[in-house]
């Protein structure tokens, strides 16, 4: 069964290829069958492979399938090899399963779009690249998948390319992640030149043998890889692209920018955890980035009025939690949070899509309201997902995963009370903004009337995802045990003054506090919310957090404007002068020569006479 591993990425690739080559006139039913079917079969195959992996685990809990050798140059021999272990299996399961549900949803959501088959081509290509990234045996193949998902992200954000703003958002996403990709590439080069291989297991082994803990190379390589992860996962300081990426279609936001692509950074760090363990400074940087981002994004999410942007900042914040977990050494907790987050975040985005679609492209939550009765399915699923996100105690998956992280932030060997406080404040913010969304959108007087209803293709994925948002938490113990084969267990260093139950209790209290204040400001006495915004300090904070803490403005002033200025100045440099000089010379000759063609008879006769004089002179006075 495990030999079918290569089909999991290959089928979506093939489907994407067919859809891309067939153009926009491909019949919609065929495109649906191909686009959704390929992911469906991939998901099925993943389940089969997973079952086989569980029932009869291969040696060393990992299975490598060598497809062919990519290059063989002077000892550098990366292969196209797929490696399956607990870490990649969990992630591939999530990607294919959630991906399949989102594809089913998109079949109805994008039904009237003229770029239907193009959409599925890109989505399939994305899933294929993501799986390649996850299953890649060496960092070069991982880089291939990394670039592939970046490309698909660009293509899908700018899917409705006729609108220039979408193109800008796509370019911004691409350029910002490119910065991260460049850092990652430098890291890869560093690793290769120092350790001589890019095959991940070899790399980790050689690194632990040759580099002492805390060595400069380890720290440098780890920080560079962190740079790449930060770009792809939209963490500080490269988080600016994700809110703008909401310009893409909602299924894209759900799949790429919530559940899967943005977690590629988490996967990278988890995969190279040995390297990070060798570089405590880098690991601290990971945790710090995670903590800072989760707070920053949490504050920003509190002020957004576009529902998708709020969810985007929420994603940034939750991935901050995952980074925090990785940074303190709670590897399995990070993966567990990824697992639950994928379900409820995808669900939140899909519901948002339903709402936006039903209200005829209305994005602002301040214009929505009272949709509880109008869109019951959306309401209940959004509620479940929102509670999961905010961490409703014991009933939702999000509670288990987030609380595990918050607890580990205190107690893990690299943990620190400061991280714990950040986690708790983040949980408060999460609860606040989530219920702000819920109360504004679903309660209160009716805002914009509903114009469209949903069909089954959109309802069923919502239901399934809601079920998982609910119940995935009960998979905590088996999942953590399973991941133990790939990631080291978190060592509990000091629990001084806090127990796990105590941490959970604080988190539960924080959840309720957030719920209460959200209720107060956004349902009961909405005037309080308006007053808070009008207050001078409140207005300042509101505007600052709304603009994402001013990062866009800083980057614009520091990078974008100088670059544009330099490009303008350089527009006519000496190389250009050379080429335009050639043109100018040709023009000069043209002008000169066309003067001689004056059309006057006597001029031509004189020309002939001069010519004969010259020739005779040449003959005579040779």
């Amino acid at each position, binding site marked *: 069964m495990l030999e079918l591993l290569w089909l999991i990425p290959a089928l979506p690739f093939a489907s994407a290829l067919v859809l891309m080559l067939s153009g926009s006139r491909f019949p919609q039913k065929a495109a649906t069958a191909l686009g959704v079917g390929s992911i469906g079969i991939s998901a099925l195959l993943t389940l089969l492979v997973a079952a086989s992996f569980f029932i009869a685990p291969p040696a060393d809990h990992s299975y490598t399938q060598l497809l062919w050798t990519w290059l063989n140059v002077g000892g550098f021999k990366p292969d196209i090899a797929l490696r399956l272990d607990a870490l990649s299996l969990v992630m591939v399961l999530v990607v294919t399963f959630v991906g399949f549900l989102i594809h089913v949803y998109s079949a109805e959501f994008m039904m009237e779009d003229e770029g239907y088959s193009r959409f599925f081509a890109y989505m399939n290509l994305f899933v294929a690249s993501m799986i390649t990234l996850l299953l890649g045996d060496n960092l070069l193949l991982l880089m291939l998948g990394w670039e592939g998902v970046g490309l698909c992200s660009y293509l899908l954000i700018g899917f409705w390319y006729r609108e220039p703003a979408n193109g800008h958002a796509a370019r911004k996403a691409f350029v910002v992640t490119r910065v991260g990709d460049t850092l990652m590439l430098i890291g890869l080069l560093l690793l290769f030149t120092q350790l001589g291989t890019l095959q991940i297991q070899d790399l980790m082994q050689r690194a632990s043998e040759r580099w002492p803990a805390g060595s400069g190379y380890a720290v440098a390589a780890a920080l560079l890889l962190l740079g790449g992860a930060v770009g792809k996962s939209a963490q500080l300081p490269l988080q600016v692209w994700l809110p703008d990426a909401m310009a893409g279609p909602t299924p894209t936001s759900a799949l790429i920018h919530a559940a899967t692509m943005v977690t590629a950074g988490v996967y990278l760090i988890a995969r190279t955890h040995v390297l990070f363990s060798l570089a405590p400074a880098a690991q601290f940087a990971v945790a710090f980035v995670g903590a800072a981002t989760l707070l920053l994004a949490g504050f920003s999410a509190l002020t957004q009025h576009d529902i998708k942007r709020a969810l985007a900042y929420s994603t940034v914040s939750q991935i901050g939690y995952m980074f925090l977990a990785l940074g303190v050494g709670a590897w399995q907790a990070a993966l567990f949070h990824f697992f639950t987050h994928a379900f409820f975040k995808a669900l939140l985005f899909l519901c948002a899509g339903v709402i936006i679609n039903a209200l005829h492209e209305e994005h602002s939550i301040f214009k929505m309201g009272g949709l509880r009765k109008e869109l019951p399915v959306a309401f209940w699923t959004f509620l479940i997902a929102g509670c999961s996100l905010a961490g409703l105690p014991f009933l939702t998956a999000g509670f288990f995963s987030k609380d595990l992280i918050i607890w580990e932030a205190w107690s893990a060997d690299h943990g620190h009370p400061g991280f714990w406080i950040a986690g708790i404040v983040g949980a408060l913010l999460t609860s606040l903004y989530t219920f702000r969304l819920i109360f504004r959108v679903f309660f209160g007087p009716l805002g914009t009337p509903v114009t469209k209803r949903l069909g089954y293709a959109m309802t069923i994925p919502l239901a399934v995802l809601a079920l998982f948002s609910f119940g995935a938490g009960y998979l905590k113990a088996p999942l953590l045990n399973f991941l133990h084969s790939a990631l080291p267990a978190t060592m509990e260093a000091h629990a001084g003054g806090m127990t796990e139950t105590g941490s959970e209790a604080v988190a539960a209290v924080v959840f309720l506090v957030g719920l209460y204040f959200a209720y107060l400001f956004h349902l009961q006495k909405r005037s309080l919310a308006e007053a808070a915004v009008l207050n001078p300090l409140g207005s300042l904070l509101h505007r600052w957090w709304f603009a994402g803490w001013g990062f866009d403005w800083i980057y614009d002033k520091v990078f974008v404007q100088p670059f544009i200025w330099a490009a303008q100045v350089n527009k006519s440099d000496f190389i250009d002068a050379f080429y335009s000089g050639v043109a100018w010379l040709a023009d000069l000759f043209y002008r000169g020569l066309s003067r001689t063609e004056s059309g006057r008879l006597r001029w031509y006769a*004189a020309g002939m*006479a*001069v010519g*004969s*004089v010259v020739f*005779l*002179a040449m003959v*005579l006075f040779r």
Partner: protein
Amino acid sequence: MELAFYIASAVAVLSTVLMVTRLNLVHALLYLIVSLLGVAVVFYVLGAPFVAALEVIVYAGAIMVLFVFVVMMLNLGKRSVETERQWLTPGIWTGPVLLAGVLLVEVVYLMRGVPAALGTAAVDPKAVGTALFGRYLIGVELASMLLLAGLVGAYHVGFRKNEKSGNRTGDAT
């Protein structure tokens, strides 16, 4: 006989100079005819009586007459004299005279050191005819085709369809 050569050549050159500088078109034409006659005498002196006769009959007698016909037909009159006076400023002569002078100097230089004297015997028409219809027969045929082309071309260019102004030649007035 040499004297005849020099006198005739002097006449030819002089009348050509006069022709070049006249303002009146008809005067210039007449001077040209004189020049051609002078050249015809030169031909005779050089022992080519046939071409001497041809020069007079064809060149001066037909071609120049054609010129005269056309000039008379154009009926340019006094205005053309004025125009010519306007156009022929003294300054306009410098460039061409210089250029032609240089060319002449070069040609003269080419000719230096050619010692040959021209022969005594004349080449009579019989010899010319033999050469013409013997060796140069194809040239004769081509020349006749050329003349045909000239004829057709001249006729076509000068042809005029029925217009409001003026009837076609041949119609009764």
